[in-house]
């Protein structure tokens, strides 16, 4: 039953929640190892866009994923596989890595909570183009309609790994992935489930690329978050999936634990549809709520993976919020935005950055921003600029989206 809650539920949220599997696909590469190497070195993956025509756009670069020729073996039928487009493929590859690492088996009633901004938007674009140019042609249109929709990607996961359970799609713009993980965390913490497959995904498409370009939010050069002369974001694409379980469940089956999620805060910035409030009140509250949830203070956070899009507005607001939240501790707080490597992955961003935090916690290093020229003086905190090894126990990841969707997640090193 989705309601009432199961008898073992606990509104006080006493259950600890751990990550037992993580899968990731970005332009840095496929899988944990390649992405860890890329994030650790601060390598950027930007290149000219090849997926659609950008000749009339101001920006012409993005972080495109090189998809493998073959998908991993799953229970999906050959017919189903040939209908998958980029977003679905990236999601499936990331899910397969996480699922395999966790060693999960097919079960009934395994919840899926995933975030995306546009699902398989390229199918929607193709549908409209054909509907306008060839109004009476139905060729391939039914497939486009079905596979355009985000719920189909969730059902594809059920079919790929032969499980069933509620598929929940969170679409909170660029905070979608973080909200999905946060919701999964709260569901497990409250005892509403024992394990959940969660994360986020998004692929590059012409509509969103042109949309951000129309807002003059795209930089013509690789993005430089928190740079004094930053001039916009660079889009990317990818997917990241986590297998989350209660600690009790993971221990029962002797699962290897990659890290623990200890805090989640979510708020709404009501200032403007696309611009955050200059004082960053909602961002501050999200970070503060996440710390309260984790029962720790900002001084106990050892690294912040910032939303850091490199737009003038976002980074200014986030700087104010971090300065206020960390107070005097800010000067000792390492902060970086891994969007300088992978680009802004929209609905996948929060999930990819969650995995980046887990990588940093497991490897005991900090992801640098090597493209930074001159730090914005508004930053009272330390921006990580060079690859560095560091003992860190906790990391906080910020995700802020259009519509004022703000989310912060806190991760703890395991053990």
């Amino acid at each position, binding site marked *: *039953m*989705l*309601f*009432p*809650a199961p008898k073992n539920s606990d*509104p006080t*949220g006493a259950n600890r929640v751990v990550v037992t599997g993580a899968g990731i696909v970005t332009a840095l590469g496929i899988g944990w190892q390649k992405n860890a190497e890329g994030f650790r070195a601060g390598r950027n993956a930007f290149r000219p866009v090849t997926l659609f025509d950008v000749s*009339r*756009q101001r920006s012409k670069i993005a972080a495109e994923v090189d998809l493998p020729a073959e998908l991993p073996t799953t*229970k999906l039928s050959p017919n189903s596989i040939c209908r998958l487009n980029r977003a679905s493929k990236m999601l499936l590859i990331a899910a397969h890595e996480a699922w395999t690492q966790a060693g999960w088996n097919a079960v009934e*009633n395994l919840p899926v909570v995933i975030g*995306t901004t546009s*699902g398989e938007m390229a199918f*929607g674009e193709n549908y*409209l*183009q054909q*509907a*306008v140019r060839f*109004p*009476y042609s*139905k060729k391939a*249109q*039914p497939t486009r*309609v*079905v596979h355009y*929709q985000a*719920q*189909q990607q*969730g*059902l594809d996961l*059920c*079919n790929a790994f032969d499980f*069933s*359970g509620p*598929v*929940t*799609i*969170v*679409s*909170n*713009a660029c905070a979608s992935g973080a*909200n999905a993980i946060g919701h999964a965390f*709260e569901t497990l913490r*409250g005892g*509403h489930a024992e394990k959940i497959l969660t994360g986020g995904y998004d692929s590059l498409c*012409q*509509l969103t690329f*042109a*949309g*951000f370009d129309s*807002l*003059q939010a795209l930089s013509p050069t690789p993005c430089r978050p928190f740079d004094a002369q930053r001039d916009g974001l660079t889009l990317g694409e990818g997917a990241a999936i986590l297998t989350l379980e209660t600690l009790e469940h993971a221990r029962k089956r002797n699962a290897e634990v990659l890290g623990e999620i200890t805090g989640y805060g*979510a708020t*709404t*910035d*009501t200032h403007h*549809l696309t611009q955050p409030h200059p004082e960053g009140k909602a961002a501050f509250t999200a970070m503060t709520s996440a710390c309260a949830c984790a029962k720790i203070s900002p001084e106990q956070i050892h690294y912040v993976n910032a939303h850091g899009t490199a737009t003038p507005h976002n980074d200014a607001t986030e700087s104010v919020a971090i300065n206020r939240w960390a107070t005097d501790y800010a000067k000792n707080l390492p902060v970086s935005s891994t969007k300088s490597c992978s680009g802004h992955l929209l609905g996948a961003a929060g999930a990819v950055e969650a995995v980046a935090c887990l990588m940093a916690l497991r490897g005991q290093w900090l992801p640098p921003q090597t493209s930074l020229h001159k730090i914005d003086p508004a930053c009272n905190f330390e921006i990580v600029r060079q690859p560095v090894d560091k003992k860190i126990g906790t990391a906080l990841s910020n995700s802020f989206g*259009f*519509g*004022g969707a703000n989310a912060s997640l806190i991760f703890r090193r395991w053990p």
Partner: protein
Amino acid sequence: MSRIFVHGLGAVSPAGWGVPALRDALKRNSPVQAQTMVRPGWKKPLHVRPVPEPVSRPVFFDHPRLRRANLIAQFTVAAALEALGKNVSLVQGGRIRLGIIVGVMAGGVNYSRRFYEEVLQNPRTASPIIFPETVFNAPASHLAAFLGSEMISYTLVGDDGTFLQGVAIAAQWLTDGKVDACLVIGAEETDWIVADAMKLFRRKTIHGAGAGAILLKKDSGSGAIAELTVITDSFPFTQSQSRFETARRMRAHLPSCAPNELLCCGEQDAAENAAWKDWAGARLAPKAILGEAFVAFAAWQCVAACESIRQSEFTAANISVVGVNQQAVGARFLACADAS
């Protein structure tokens, strides 16, 4: 176990603005007149059931965030404000911590189509005003801004059953003490591209628009309309589970027919009809009257069911949702002894 109560209802539908218009249309039990909509490139128009113009212009249309907002945002806000009733000032005054959950399937498709058409013509001149309205969570954002609510807000995407998933999340937030009240809204808008796509699968179904909203709280005191007692598991349509099987399993989670109970269902689906063939009690099937409006439709089902409880027509109402392409999920509402 925490108990969850419905404290407010709101609706914007092809029948008009407000729950009374919805209720009157369902009472009449005859389909709302369909309108024609031009389908570019076709000689014949499409038929849809849009929301009629409001009798008088709602004041909230003048809010800076809503002047240029798409129709789906206007429907969302209207339904939400009706459900909130006197609670609006409490939310705006910061005396109620309000969670907001908006469920959509097609979402703000008018502006998405329009923006992409502009991109195809010339991306240099595509409108930066329209693009932000294309994101799924724009209606939730506008509503939060209107109410000044900075609490948690989710926009969920999926088929009709997404509305009940949203209700379940609201119940979780209330149970966990995260919010004092939670609005759950299902909303859709009409567009030729959606009506065109629907014809590929169900030729006779007419696409409708609007929104439905319910306000949930933990307290059973003054103003409680009905008690939420069950939301079944969500049974997804997978390779190993047919629509018929999911509908049957959903139905098995809900009680047998009892006197003075209502079944509020879709009634245009063979799987759903098979699952409920034993039901001998009263049925309400709004789809034939209002059209197919995906998540908004499931919201209307709940609103209509709770309204019938408020009117003391039934002591219990069961909601059956066998969605378009994702899941079967059901719910049950009971009259509450404390309801005023």
